């Protein structure tokens, strides 16, 4: 099993990209060495490539604005927004400018900007540094959102975003940075059988702890919540022999998996787990997608689990209550069965 971490995958891929390509420029706050970024994703880059790494003033709107300009001139800027919570400051540049260029200039430009940002809680960083805000951007036209889980290779996904062209919001859940990632092809990971589907650039990972036969729960989840869902799923199997299949996309704002109809037929219930609060969120969109495009029999239950609809507390104990935990997921599923 591969032993590199989520953080190492990102860092080594950025090194590799800067070594091999001249059109990549990285912008962000405090990303130069010796600090190397708040989460050390850009560690060591500025030493080797001082001309390509720019530590910027604390002005998120300006950072995206500069990146937009670079993209219009043919560069491939990668932007680091230190905390995902600060994306709100970039909203105008992203929504009103970046995502509209291609359309406004009749496809004569391809503003290929990748905006990397760490999201999520569980680190005790409090209400303004712990949120999961991608749901605010999920409905923006021409903006794709990628959120790799620990079953994806985040480094490879960054490269795929650049190759794909067009603006990307790249969500890194900060709780995943130290996690090992599973990128070597393997039929089984722990108690799960693994299948991969979807576009090659943005794969969807499927994990089943019942060999892809009928399961009690089909669970949709992405990003930082995945290891928690995985634990819950394993606990349910261990204690109650409740089986589940996990559906883990990397590109989270649209996906089309032809196998989903088949999966829906062989699951008894559907559950969507996300780290942000559920109202008007990703889970709601999944439910609409399932209902509009696929026939779901009436005897199936559909449920969502997310954080409480309130700011994230600084206190660790309270944060644990607000964010969905493995125990909470287990209890919810037990109540549903």
């Amino acid at each position: 099993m591969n032993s590199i971490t989520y953080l190492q995958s990102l860092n080594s891929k950025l090194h590799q990209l800067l070594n091999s390509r001249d059109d990549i420029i990285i912008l962000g706050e405090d990303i130069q060495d010796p600090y190397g970024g708040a989460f050390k994703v850009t560690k060591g880059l500025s030493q080797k490539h001082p001309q390509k790494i720019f530590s910027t003033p604390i002005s998120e709107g300006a950072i995206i604005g500069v990146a937009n300009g670079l993209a219009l001139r043919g560069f491939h800027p990668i932007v680091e927004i230190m905390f995902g919570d600060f994306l709100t400051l970039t909203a105008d540049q992203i929504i009103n400018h970046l995502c509209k260029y291609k359309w406004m200039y009749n496809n004569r430009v391809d503003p290929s900007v990748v905006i990397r940002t760490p999201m999520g809680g569980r680190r005790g960083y409090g209400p303004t540094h712990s949120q999961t805000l991608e749901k605010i951007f999920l409905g923006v036209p021409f903006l794709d959102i990628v959120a790799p889980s620990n079953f994806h290779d985040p480094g490879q996904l960054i490269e795929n975003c650049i190759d794909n062209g067009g603006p990307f919001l790249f969500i890194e859940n900060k709780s995943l940075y130290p996690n090992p990632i599973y990128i070597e092809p393997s039929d089984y990971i722990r108690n799960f059988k693994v299948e991969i589907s979807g576009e090659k650039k943005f794969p969807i990972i499927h994990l089943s702890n019942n060999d892809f036969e009928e399961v009690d729960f089909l669970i949709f989840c992405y990003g930082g919540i995945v290891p928690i869902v995985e634990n819950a799923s394993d606990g349910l199997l261990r204690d109650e022999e409740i089986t589940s299949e996990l559906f883990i996309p990397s590109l989270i704002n649209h996906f089309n998996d032809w196998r989903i109809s088949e999966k829906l037929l062989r699951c008894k219930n559907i559950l969507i787990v996300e780290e942000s609060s559920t109202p008007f969120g990703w889970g709601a969109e999944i439910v609409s997608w399932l209902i509009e495009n696929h026939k779901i029999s009436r005897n199936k239950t559909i449920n969502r689990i997310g954080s409480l609809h309130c700011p994230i507390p600084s206190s660790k104990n309270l944060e644990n209550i607000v964010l969905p935990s493995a125990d909470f997921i287990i209890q919810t599923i037990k109540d549903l069965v």
Partner: protein
Amino acid sequence: MIAFNVPQVGVNDEFVTLMKIFTEDLKEVNKGDLVCIIESSKATMDVEAPESGYIKLNAKTGDQVKINSILFYILKNPEELVSIVDQPLENSEQVNATRKAIELAKNHGIDLTTFSNKTIIREKDIQKLIEKRNGEINIKSGIDDQRWLSKLGTGFSEIRELNKSQKLIAGNLSQVHQSVVTSYFSMIIESTPLQKIIDQFKENNKIILTHTEIVIYCISRLLTKYPLLNSFLLDESVRFYEETNIGFTIDINDRLIVPVIRNCNQKTLVEIARDANIFKMKAIMNKVIPADLMGGSFTVSNLIDGNLLIFLPVINIYQSAVIGISGNFSLPTGDASNQLIITLGIDHRIINGKYAANFIRDLKAQLMSVFVDIV
């Protein structure tokens, strides 16, 4: 009974190392006695007995023990051990299996470590194995029973189906009977020295000792010299057991069970007697679990209370020898003292007569010298 959990010595530690143990299982300790030393990443710590009682350790020297897991138990009396034995095994977590699978396996005496599943072992995997195993047990006589029964010309007052464990025993014995070629060797032994040990033991250790345990003790010391007796024949090859696990018969409430005392060659006579007494107690309380009956490599059957001269015990499945103890009365040989008859049954396919005769001769010598050994 008190369970002592590993304390959090250092804030960041998940495990401590058990460095040294100052006592042993079922030894009496007083409150405040030093039990062991544990070491965290930062310091060592003496662990004292929180209460007086008998120690049952849950880890051995050098083990990495998880914080908050049970390090040892303090029993009010050794008999409480039964309730620990009945608890699910601590290391069952290490086996990748669901709770239901662990329970089912435990109830059927199935060793989960023998599974080679790619992922977690489930209830259905155990059920499959049980079905397969039940299919293998063949109690049938080999003739057309139905046809024979129809010509019998008499009815039955009752047809009583065997219960699960009886079926298992019947199946095993049928299998042995069909394959093993048994040969028997008997010897007379004077009972008086053994009776002295038994009496002495009662006085010194307050432990009930019978002839069975003394014989088990002596056999266990001899089996390294006679490894064929601790083996069995399967598919044209002899498989020698690593451990010396000796089963002994308990006939209680018309139910014959053969619990197995493990690693007898590493145990003292006191420990063997203690183990045997625990099994006897469990048998009375009907608390013997299938796991207690598995893994025997040799069997001792004791029928000295039956006033029998001699009997021929049957060799158990996957074993090559059995000892029967009978007699214990004055024989008309002129000697007035009580005499025991020891009968050894062997699988003649792999053990020849001379080997067996030497063993039983050595066993006699061992039994005569055990008195010197212990007292």
